[in-house]
């Protein structure tokens, strides 16, 4: 068995104690995914597993054997950035950039959830299609903290790209 990271099959760590986060950063030399709190509280380590956003710091790498993992390094198409990456630059969606890989992976996962109809705690009618208002995006992105306070830029970048596609 193996993990599939950004399309490439890689071996899981020999020691089951290794988190997916540490395996990505130290075992596979993919340092784009960041370690903030290492206890589930900040979202900096967010990656996509089969399209779903998860926290790699609370994930044991061995548990993800056979799953498709996408990190920030896997989003660009060769030299062409993912539209959300470009939007983060255009909308000043970061300052120091530490939370950015997690924010971007999280937003892509969020858009997929909204498209599928997953409600949030703010959703009034639980049976209606999801409209990603600014407030809905704030709530759905609350698992990603930004110590620099770039949230307004982050939300603008999301609204200009992946959130706009949900409404369409």
């Amino acid at each position, binding site marked *: 068995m193996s993990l599939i990271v950004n399309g490439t099959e890689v071996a899981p760590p020999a020691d*089951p104690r290794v988190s997916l986060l540490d395996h990505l950063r130290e075992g596979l030399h993919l340092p784009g995914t960041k370690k903030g709190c290492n206890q589930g509280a900040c979202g900096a380590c967010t990656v996509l597993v089969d399209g779903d956003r998860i*926290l790699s710091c609370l994930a044991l790498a061995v*548990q993800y054997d056979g799953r498709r993992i996408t990190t920030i390094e896997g989003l660009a198409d060769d030299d062409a950035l993912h539209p959300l990456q470009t939007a983060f630059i255009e909308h000043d969606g970061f300052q120091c950039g530490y939370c950015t890989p997690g924010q971007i992976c999280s937003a892509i996962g969020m858009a997929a959830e909204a498209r599928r*109809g997953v409600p949030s705690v703010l959703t009034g009618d639980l049976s209606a299609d999801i409209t990603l208002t600014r407030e809905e995006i704030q709530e759905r992105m609350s698992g990603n903290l930004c110590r620099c306070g770039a949230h307004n830029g982050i939300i603008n970048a999301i609204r200009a790209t992946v959130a706009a596609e949900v409404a369409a």
Partner: protein
Amino acid sequence: MTPFDYARPTDLAEALRMGAAAGAAYLGGGTNIVDLMRERLAQPSALVDVSTLPATIAETDGGGLMIGAAVRNTALAEHPVVRSRYPVLARAILAGASAQIRNMATVGGNVLQRTRCTYFYDAEGSSCNKRAPGQGCDAVGGFNRIHAVLGTSDACVATHPSDMCVALAALDAIVHIDGPLGQRTMPFGDLHRLPGDQPDRDTVLAPGDLIVAIELPPLRFGASSTYRKVRDRASYAFALISVAAAVEMDGDRIGDVRIAFGGVAPKPWRALTAEAALRGGPATAQAFRDAAAAEFADARVLRDNSFKPVLASRTLAAVLGTLTTGEAA
């Protein structure tokens, strides 16, 4: 983290066999146990991964739902039947943790997550009877704003942190268990224990017991239910107070009602006293407040949490007002 063996059983029988070994623990999404293992608050010698066992949400003959323990929190909250017949459950799940954590967390793991008492987590610096029986409890005389006011003992005042469980308590869920003692079911309300003088035991489960499924019986007025959570920030924080409720009106009287509180007790707190006070009576702000007062009559408040009975009363009035008249009372 103490070394451990990782095993991924392919079926229930294999999982039970592995889980029965001394020192083994089951692994759901890992969002609680991995953290506890890093802090050495859990030191299993083997983790038996039950997160990939077949997990479905199936309608039962009577119109209820059978939910496999490995179903992820997000999958349960987004299920069409949960959204339409048990909105209180969808809303409780969505009020908890973050989207990333809900995508990882399983139903079984959520039910068995441990307290968030800061003294419990502070193994280096604090005394805690839940972590180390007989050591004493620093929360009783310490910073206890987040702690419990009902069902506590001198040994422990920690709360059960789950939002989902508050809805399960209100819905009279049934827990399906398998393990060394065989298959059995129990009412959800019997699963978690009050601390008494044994606060290290959160539940009545025996070693090796696996939660296989959670069953929701049909609830005629389940569609008229909701969940409200009050916390220190608007999102991604544990509850100070939460209320799960379902109401059925009979003319201008309350025909039937289900209420459970979170954030107030060492277990999800089913409010049978408040329910009895309300059944057959008027749906007025005064009746809601009186019911809350009856439920919290025996509350033992601590230095920093005397606001909890008051906040619980206001939150209950807001929830029942919204369900009965469309407006918070």
